[in-house]
């Protein structure tokens, strides 16, 4: 009798890029808040205690260091996701009907969290945050290099609109992170899965 197939695992590339990307993203958000405080777009400042870098120069140094980390882990993840079929297999966008149905179930805390399969809400959230992270990088490059990457900056309007979009991407990513962390707290075995590779826990 052949043994049962092992449960599907998070590939090592997914886990590595998840954690490297997570550290990079947190550094980017916190240093970005310090940079924001130098010239706030909105009528408030971020409390200094939850920013990174201490002053504008320090924050930019953090931001343009973590940037490389995020781009490296992101490139690794995207290359793996497309080449291995991971995106096509696991993150295919659901139909509107499927999404609304499963979203309604999720809001009633009645959505099964099956091992080895993402439900429609998860697929939309994970594919969405990947797309938003890509846009965050692109708008960031557009405001870092508005001359050398002039066409990219023009794609987002101009420097000032690209800057506002970059800020908006941060807001969306922070929003995703809050929901993500709450859901991990509700289903803590998923955290173990992202560390050990075992989907659905032990």
């Amino acid at each position, binding site marked *: 009798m052949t043994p049962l197939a092992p449960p599907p695992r998070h590939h090592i590339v997914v886990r590595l890029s998840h954690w490297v990307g997570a550290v990079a993203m947190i550094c980017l958000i*916190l240093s970005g808040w310090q940079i924001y405080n130098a010239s706030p*777009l909105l009528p408030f400042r971020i409390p200094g205690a939850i920013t*990174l870098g201490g002053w504008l120069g*320090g924050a930019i140094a953090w931001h*343009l260091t973590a940037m490389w980390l995020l781009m490296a882990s992101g490139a690794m993840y995207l290359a793996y996701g497309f080449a291995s079929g991971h995106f096509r297999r696991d993150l295919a966008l659901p139909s509107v009907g499927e999404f609304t149905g499963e979203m309604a179930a999720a809001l009633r805390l009645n959505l099964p969290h099956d091992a080895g399969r993402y439900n429609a809400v998860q697929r939309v959230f994970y594919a969405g945050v990947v797309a938003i992270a890509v846009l965050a990088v692109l708008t960031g490059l557009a405001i870092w290099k*508005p*001359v*050398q990457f002039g066409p990219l900056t023009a794609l987002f309007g101009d420097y000032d609109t690209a800057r506002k979009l970059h800020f908006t991407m941060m807001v969306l990513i922070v929003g995703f992170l809050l929901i993500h962390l709450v859901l991990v707290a509700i289903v803590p075995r998923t955290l173990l899965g992202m560390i050990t590779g075992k989907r659905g826990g032990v």
Partner: protein
Amino acid sequence: MARILLPEHRRALGKLQPGLTRRGLAGGLSLGALTLLTGCDLSDDDSVIDRALWAMLRFNDRVQAAMFSPTRLARTYTRADITKPFRFNAFYPIERVPQIDLAGWRLELAGLIDQKKPWALPDIMALPQESQITRHICVEGWSQIGEWRGVPLGNFLRRVGADLTARYVGFTCGDEYYSSIDMASALHPQTILALEFEQTALSPIWGAPLRLRIPTKLGFKNPKFITAITVTNENPGGYWEDLGYNWFSGS
């Protein structure tokens, strides 16, 4: 008499003005989670992280130099796009703007330049000039569109016989500011020694009588009140650059 601030001068300046010493980059982060995460005390400015960030600043200098195109132009705008009122910005309040005596002012030249004879203002004004309406982007994130007119720095450097294979062009200023740029950026067609802002001779708040306008770099790389230009292979640094802003800071 303008003095060129080479690194040894800068160290002396640092002693005179304790504020002018390199600042930590890691920052006084009080977020416990990240300290736990990295296992480092990020508030220690001599930490491994601080040294790593300084190394990354220099790495980013090299990446940006490699990305820089000597021919790609910054976007230009029309007069209708000009930001009004244009914002004054310096490392001191507007009351402390220096009033330079224009008659006695000379532009000193130093370093790897054949003809080091100082230039009086009318002689510079007699050189061919070009106008630009470009976006000035501050390291803080804000930006504004303005119009400048002046002598292309590349033409000036060629005229005085500067060694165009040298690596750096440094600027010393009448407000104790100093900065420097790479030679490739100095020779970019939109890099000008500006004499005019908004179609009138620079007033003191805009850096009279001579300032650098370089739309391919951030605002703090556009020194005002220029009193001396030096061409050198030793990086002259800069006021903010030595405190921890990225030196290349190209746009």
